[in-house]
């Protein structure tokens, strides 16, 4: 179970070093297997703004840029073709170090001095998905709001410095399979108070019977102890904010879109798996939690057709199954770019049944665990 120290700090004040924290938690039973110190290997890379671009006198493919770093202006020669005047970019200066042990020095490029190098997104250890509007090749262009960070170290400006702990959680402590649970462990291990950061949710819309009302029936309560759902309207599917992407990534989960990310975020934070449906794909606005019929079929999100039997629990609408309960959603009820009304599901299913079903379907994902 991976957890970033930054996220844990929301639940308990951690004033000791990461190494000390890891040792303390190991000695109270949550063994830290590895500590990943991200961003520690980036040095002397600074945020700058391009003031001027001129052609290189001696090479067609190179350009000469003058970059404002706040207290100085530097000249950088580059072969990149995606930059323009006014762009905010990360600049590796003379003596800079990049992930992978790469060192940057000033030098002459075809006779013109270059006092460093502008960086592409992968060169500072990030992935294209981590930041909005990024491309694989070329220089990383930061949003214009980053102009206020000119002159600042990129590690600070982009909050690249992150410590991630990987815990070995024993089977008798499933409470530690969430950030909140680990937060309690941290508070208890360090002897500090536990903080609860959660907000209150405001009801801004009303349920109109027949229009946006959802009927839920649990036909097999021995396999589903509780089922809760909530409708959210006027949703626009898009990218999640930076801080959320970063927290998901620290825990080893890919950012997909804002809605899917929310379900994963809640699962990581509270240990409660969630699912999201497009309300329009739920026939009759009727959710029935029931055992599957023998040989009932569903195509799951991974585009595989699954044949179910009476031991598998499904979430179904009036017509067909829309998800294998607790295991995987169906392709037919998936949240799509044009979805505007979401149903969030949060339920407690019989653990053994979920495990058995998942095994038969040969799938594994964090929600099942």
């Amino acid at each position, binding site marked *: 179970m991976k957890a970033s120290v930054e996220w844990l700090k929301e639940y308990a004040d951690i004033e000791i070093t990461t190494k000390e924290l890891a040792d303390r938690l*190991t*000695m*109270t*039973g949550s*063994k830290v297997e590895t500590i990943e110190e991200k961003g520690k290997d980036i040095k002397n890379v600074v945020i700058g703004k391009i003031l001027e671009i001129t052609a290189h006198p001696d090479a067609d493919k190179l350009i000469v840029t003058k970059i404002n770093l706040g207290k100085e202006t530097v000249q950088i020669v580059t072969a990149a073709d995606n930059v323009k005047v006014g762009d905010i970019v990360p600049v590796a200066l003379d003596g800079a170090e990049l992930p992978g042990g790469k060192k940057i020095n000033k030098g002459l490029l075809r006779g013109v001095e270059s006092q460093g190098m502008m960086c592409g997104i992968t060169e500072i250890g990030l992935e294209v998905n981590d930041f909005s509007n990024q491309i694989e090749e070329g220089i990383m262009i930061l949003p214009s709001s980053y102009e206020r960070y000119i002159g600042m170290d990129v590690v600070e400006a982009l909050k690249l410095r992150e410590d991630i702990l990987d815990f070995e959680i*024993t*089977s*008798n*402590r499933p409470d530690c399979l969430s950030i909140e649970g680990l937060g309690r462990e941290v508070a208890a291990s360090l002897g500090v108070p536990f903080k609860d950061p959660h907000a209150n949710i405001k009801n801004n819309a009303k349920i109109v019977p027949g229009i946006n009302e959802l009927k839920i029936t649990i036909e097999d309560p021995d396999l589903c102890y509780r089922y809760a759902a909530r409708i959210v309207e006027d949703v626009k599917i898009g990218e999640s904010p930076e801080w959320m992407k970063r927290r998901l990534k620290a825990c080893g989960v890919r950012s997909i879109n804002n809605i899917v990310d929310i379900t994963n975020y809640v699962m990581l934070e509270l240990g409660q798996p969630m699912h999201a449906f497009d309300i329009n794909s739920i026939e009759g606005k009727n959710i029935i939690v029931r055992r599957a019929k023998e040989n009932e079929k569903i195509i799951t999100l991974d585009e595989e057709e699954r044949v179910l039997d009476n031991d598998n629990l499904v979430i179904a609408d009036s017509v067909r199954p829309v998800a294998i309960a607790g295991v995987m959603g169906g392709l037919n009820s998936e949240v799509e770019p044009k979805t505007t009304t979401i149903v969030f599901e949060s339920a407690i299913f019989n653990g*053994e049944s979920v*495990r058995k079903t998942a095994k038969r379907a040969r799938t594994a994902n964090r929600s099942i665990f």
Partner: protein
Amino acid sequence: MEEQISKIKKVATMEIEETKDLQSLNDVRIKYLGKKGELTAVLRNMGNLTPEERPFVGSMVNAIRDELETQIGIREKVLKSEILKERLEKEKIDVTVPAKSRAIGSIHPITGVIDNIKDIFLGLGYEIADGPEIEKTYYVFDQLNTPEGHPARDLQDTFYITDDIILRTQTSSVQIRTMENKQPPIKIICPGTVYRSDSVDSTHSPVFHQIEGLVIDKGITMADLKGTLEIFARKCLGENTKIRFRPHHFPYTEPSAEVDVSCFVCGGKGCRVCKNEGWIELLGCGMVHPKVLKNCNIDPEIYSGFAFGFGAERIAMAKYGIDDMRLMYENDGRFLKQF
């Protein structure tokens, strides 16, 4: 006359070349140049020649005789050197060849470790218990508080022969068998082979060796467990070895712990072997869960006990600095003879 002499020369030369040994060479010599030799015969018959022919033939014969003598001489040298060479080859004795020795076997490092551990515990008054390797799930899981559906049952990734018969994943099954057949006090260790469905890599093997220990009596406490393991660590790995306990979880012990030993390579300062931690994880242990005692008809209100277990390979690797487990299973003489 001249033709005759030339012919003799030609034939003689050929025969000399073809001789394969000194004896036949001598025979050829005698044939042409001996008292009754062909050339000698020609010389004798010179009396039949005219006075003009005589000096001419005489000198020709003498010239040929000289030539043949030379050729015989050369051939003799060649044959002699060949004979010498053959003799040298055949009769040579190489004094640098090492004396023939017997290949003596040695104790396999894993066996050595197990023997050493057996000695330590026998010295502490333990007995050695054994049990079958093909076991019933009853003995490996059910009696050890690991019921069906418990994740520990998958985590161990077992080889199933039938639904109820498996290759044992731990030697704890021997502990159960002992407890069912004997009332306390019990003080045993059970070394043995165990099987888990792991893919082979430098630290994992589907077949490996465990040594487990069990003590049950009145008034056994965790302090006894700590003390026992401390002595064991010191005797097995060095007098200055320290141990530390960390809370852990096993379904059959409560409380459970994992024990690290101070790295015997760096003494705790941090090095490659202990991954700069200063400690190497070595064994799991704990106080026997009361449910397990009950399952074996031992009253947990009267008796208590502790159990511990570790992998022999792990200890061998740590003790001898072996970094790849597979080396211990390959039966390579170059590896084994180092022990």
